[in-house]
């Protein structure tokens, strides 16, 4: 195994002796590349956004924006990174930088390098094409096809965003000789097996399982969107980190008539792209999950593995009757997601066991809905999440699955409500909505009051009934 290194703005730099907990952001800044900033150290503000060459779905490589504050720099061993400094210079601005500068897209400038990187990732999106009929852009898409959600993980306190939107919508397509656009046509760097004190990226699943058998206390990391927060905000210094996000066995996506299987290490952005509409409930849910910057790193395995009571994918997958494939050195087993969680951030998964994949049985419910209650539409955590999957035959509900987040120590199924719904005439669900309001044990906290959470349980079903035809 060669010693670790990272290619930044075209220059390859060794990572020898870097402590395992060092984030890409701290490492970049200590290397003199201070353009990326720390605004929050938990992946909420995007001031640390950088571009990473990742495998793409429509081109071999896709420039993918990530929060450098969350990723351990050792997780980027062998990878290619571009920062705001690498995109252009004051005398030779990148098109994104030019539009941001001339349109008043920066005021204090602190969030700007991060915005520039997130915007550049969308600038280079291979399937970004101008919208055919001018005058028809949705509020969140520019005439040039720019999807504003690409900037949902970047916060600006100065501008009010309008000039940044205008800069984004003014971008043309990359020039024919644009080197970074050209880079997308060549394969992305392989995931380099890494083995340094405290940080290991095994080459394949058997190696990973063997390592976990040896170090049952090791912290398993994929996109590090949760782990990075623990490291930065709560001083977690794990003795051993095992990176599994590029294990080929965890990166499959398949759709058959019987089952949809999604690898645990497929990022949420990739899930949306690779499923291509095969799971309609996820198409409702994923755009509301955190931000693009987070979805570019976060995985289903990670979201379920942390066992958070408010991880948004769990309610959705509960409504789809999903199960998890758990694998260890001893073999594989399948566990229904409804039986997976055992308590606050606890589950039936044993030490040494990994989530390999999520399985969604076919056919899926005919009527699906996802209601997320949060303070902010983009980039927020749910105070309550309600996922609904129903079969309605001739106006009668014949089968119901409801997953709830934020109302108990774990994500839960609203079983009493499901029972009350079966046999009900859609959309006359007032009685079932009253039952739903009694599910779980919602708490008062800084996100919402218990009374509001309860009210929102009821309202989620009423809203769905009002808005979704059978």
């Amino acid at each position, binding site marked *: 195994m060669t010693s670790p290194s990272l290619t930044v703005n075209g220059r390859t730099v060794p990572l020898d002796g870097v402590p395992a907990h060092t984030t890409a952001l701290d490492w970049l800044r200590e290397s003199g590349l201070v353009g990326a900033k720390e605004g929050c150290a938990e992946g909420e503000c995007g001031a640390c956004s950088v571009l990473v060459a990742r495998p793409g779905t429509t081109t071999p490589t896709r420039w993918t924006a990530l929060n450098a504050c969350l990723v351990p720099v050792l997780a980027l061993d062998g990878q290619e990174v571009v920062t705001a400094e690498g995109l252009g210079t*004051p005398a030779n601005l990148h098109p994104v930088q030019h539009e941001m500068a001339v349109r008043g897209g920066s*005021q204090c400038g602190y969030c*700007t390098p991060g915005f*520039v990187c997130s915007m550049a990732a969308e600038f280079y999106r291979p399937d970004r094409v101008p919208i055919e009929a001018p005058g028809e852009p949705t509020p969140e898409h520019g005439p040039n096809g720019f999807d504003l959600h690409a900037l949902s993980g970047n916060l600006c306190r100065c501008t*009010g965003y309008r000039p940044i939107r205008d800069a984004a919508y003014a971008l043309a397509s990359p020039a024919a000789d644009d080197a970074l656009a050209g880079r997308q046509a060549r394969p992305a760097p392989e995931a380099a097996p890494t083995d340094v004190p405290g940080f290991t990226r095994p080459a394949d699943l058997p190696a990973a399982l063997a390592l976990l058998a040896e170090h049952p206390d090791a912290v398993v990391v994929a996109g590090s969107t949760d782990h990075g*927060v623990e490291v930065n905000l709560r001083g977690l210094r794990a003795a051993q980190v095992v990176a599994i996000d590029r294990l080929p066995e965890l990166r499959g996506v398949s759709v058959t008539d019987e089952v949809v299987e999604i690898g645990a290490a497929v990022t949420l952005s990739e899930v949306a792209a690779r499923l291509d509409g095969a799971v309609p409930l996820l198409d409702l849910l994923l755009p509301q999950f955190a931000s693009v910057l987070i979805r570019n790193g976060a995985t289903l395995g990670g979201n379920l593995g942390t066992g958070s009571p408010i991880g948004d994918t769990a309610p959705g997958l509960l409504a789809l009757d999903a199960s998890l494939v758990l694998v260890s050195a001893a073999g594989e087993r399948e566990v229904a997601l409804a039986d997976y969680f055992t308590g606050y951030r606890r589950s039936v998964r044993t030490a040494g066991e990994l989530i390999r994949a999520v399985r969604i049985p076919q056919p899926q419910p005919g009527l699906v809905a996802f209601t997320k209650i949060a303070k902010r539409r983009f980039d*927020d955590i749910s105070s309550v999440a309600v996922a609904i999957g129903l079969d309605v035959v001739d106006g009668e509900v014949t089968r119901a699955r409801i997953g709830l987040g934020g109302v108990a120590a774990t994500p839960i199924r609203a079983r009493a409500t499901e029972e009350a719904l079966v046999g009900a005439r859609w959309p006359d669900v007032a009685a079932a909505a009253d039952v739903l309001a009694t599910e779980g044990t919602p708490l008062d906290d800084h996100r919402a009051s218990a009374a509001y959470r309860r009210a929102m349980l009821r309202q989620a079903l009423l809203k769905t009934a009002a808005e979704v035809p059978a």
Partner: protein
Amino acid sequence: MSALSERPLGAVVGASVPHEAAALHVTGQALYTDDLVGRTKGVLHAWPVQVLAAHARVTAVRTDAATAVPGVVRVLTAADVPGVNDAGVKHDEPLFPDEVMFFGHAVAWVLGETLEAARLGAVAVEVDVEELPALVTVRDAVAAESFQGGRPTLLRGPDVEEALAGSAHVFSGEFEFAGQEHFYLETHCALAQVDENGQVFVQSSTQHPTETQEIVAHVLGLASSEVTVQCLRMGGGFGGKEMQPHGLAAVAALGARLTGRPVRLRLNRAQDITMTGKRHGFLAQWRVGFDDDGRLTALDATLTSDGGWSLDLSEPVLARALCHIDNAYWIPAVRVNGRIAKTNKTSQTAFRGFGGPQGMLVIEDVLGRCAPALGFTAEELRRRNFYAPGQDTPYGQPVRHADRLATAWQQVLDSSDFHARTAGIEAFNAGSPHLKRGLAITPVKFGISFNFTAFNQGGALVHVYKDGSVLITHGGTEMGQGLHTKMLQVAATALGVPLSRVRLAPTRTDKVPNTSATAASSGADLNGGAVKNACEQILARLSQVAAEELHVPAADVRFVGGRVRGLDADGASLPWEDVVRLAYFSRVQLWAAGFYRTEGLHWDSAAMRGEPFKYFAYGVAAAEVEVDGFTGAYRVRRVDIVHDVGDSLSPLVDLGQVEGGFVQGVGWLTLEDLRWDERTGKITTSSASTYKLPSFSEMPEDFRVSLLDAAHEDGAVYGSKAVGEPPLMLAFSVREALRQAAAAFGPARVSVDLASPATPEAVFWAVEAARAAEGAHVRDGGSAPPQPDGPPIRPESERVLGQT
């Protein structure tokens, strides 16, 4: 037109130019204080020892275990302070306290070779405390009569009791509203060094370098001349870096002095939120009278601000709140009392608007709640009460240019197609059971100048070098507001040279001394006046040189576009560079220190009377929202703004201030939800994941901003007006639109009580109350609010204080 406000032909001010550092911002090359660490050798890192109790007596601090941590170099405690152990100017903010006054108060600081070592060292410091009873909420403090500072009263006109007794309608109510976390993207940071001569050099993210210098000096027991403070730029300030940086800079400087090594102190986000002050939340209790035509007859109110643990800027913030409770409205009889609660919270401080927004929010809330009860639309009620030319404010200042209010109001009504859209919204709402829309229009009148008269002065230093290039520096700091861009434009205009001829050097206390805070929106007015003055001193000398060369009278020499000529534009002329070179060889001084003082201000803070403001800035906004009745979630569909910036110095910059201020105001009023655990005193929203500021999803979908035409201001540099703060208050339009949309779920003329911030949850409860037609929160009649008795704000209490 005054000499100060008149623009020459070919002026560079008024041109739309990008921020002077835009190319550095977008390429990641603009440096902020913490970016300097990698360029400095041997830096030590500081980490606070925070005590997790809201109120406690410190009985022991043991540092032995900490100094044993590998990499820990020193622990700083109160015993190390050679000068005054105080971080403020009121001597009520011990830098190393022996009494913990809020949850997370730092009692010691650890210096380490690495940040990791300092962090681990801080964990190892043992602090023994004896917990004391704590007051967390403003109502707790009121009940315990825990107040601090002056208790001013603003009185005007006929006796309020009599005026209310004679009013056709009297209402009363209460309104408690939240403060706001600044959440500048760059947290507080200082980097301190001591040179071979003992000179202390602190680079600080500070809006007030002079005061940072003074606090560092008094903590270290040094004279001001022994301390230099520099601020390259800030990643946002918004008032949060007006007073709060001083103690942090002093800790870094103390560490540097004691160890002989550079010390970096940068707060992470959680430390910044838990340790530094915020916008004051207020409790307002009020009675108001109207006549049958909806005209205000009297206002009787008591405002209690939540000052937190120390006084900081709470007195001038309160004074400005009282001076803005009228907003745009003529109120014949006024009695407004103010007081500052002392609570076990962070010491609340300046934040864009500086109390003005809080005062104005009270009257806008009153009008929004009372309009249905009076049978007027909110638009009609507001317009009927506008100041007319010739009327004066409750503190006795004539409202100059009051007609601009009506002008801007009409412009927004027209440009937003207000009445037709109102009818359209009524039709939409009638046919939409679950989604309702609201459209509201609100005005802003905001006084410009520091209430404290002495702060209304500015300084600048302008160098012209032999090759004709120009370097300027001034007393103001750059935090994104575009001050440096404007100052470059002012200098180029005043000297008659192209913008590219002028460069700007960072703000430093050894270049321009005794500066005022870059605050109160006054940066361009004060420093622009000073830059212009310095340039004019130089031009007066160069005119003599050019006059001889051109054979014209010196008074007729003109400097235009980099050339120097007589009055005849087609006559003989010289390049600027030639005149500069000639001047040098003639031994003429090519640099000057400029100075500016705002004329015509006077203020009696004890009586709360005078003319504290040079002028008023006006603006009007109309906002349309759509509320989901199921959840209370909402979107801002469209916003139309007309705002008065005088004759704009830099339209792109001013537009950015208007839009950015507006969205920040929307954040305060709708989304940003500061929460304290009322039992422990802990801030439960101490991170970006729990404290939500506006993101792209809160940007108005359709955002139309224009600057008021024909808005020349005689009393400010090149006819411009200050712009930093006033637009924040245009956001009242969104709050009032939410109130109207919530009301649309209920019966006609229902009065809606809306919490602030109006989060989706708060809007949901307002919708539920409207459905139940619960209008009882506005009481007919009612009794007087509490009439606190206490000392007035003393002029000397302001002497050393700044205002935003």
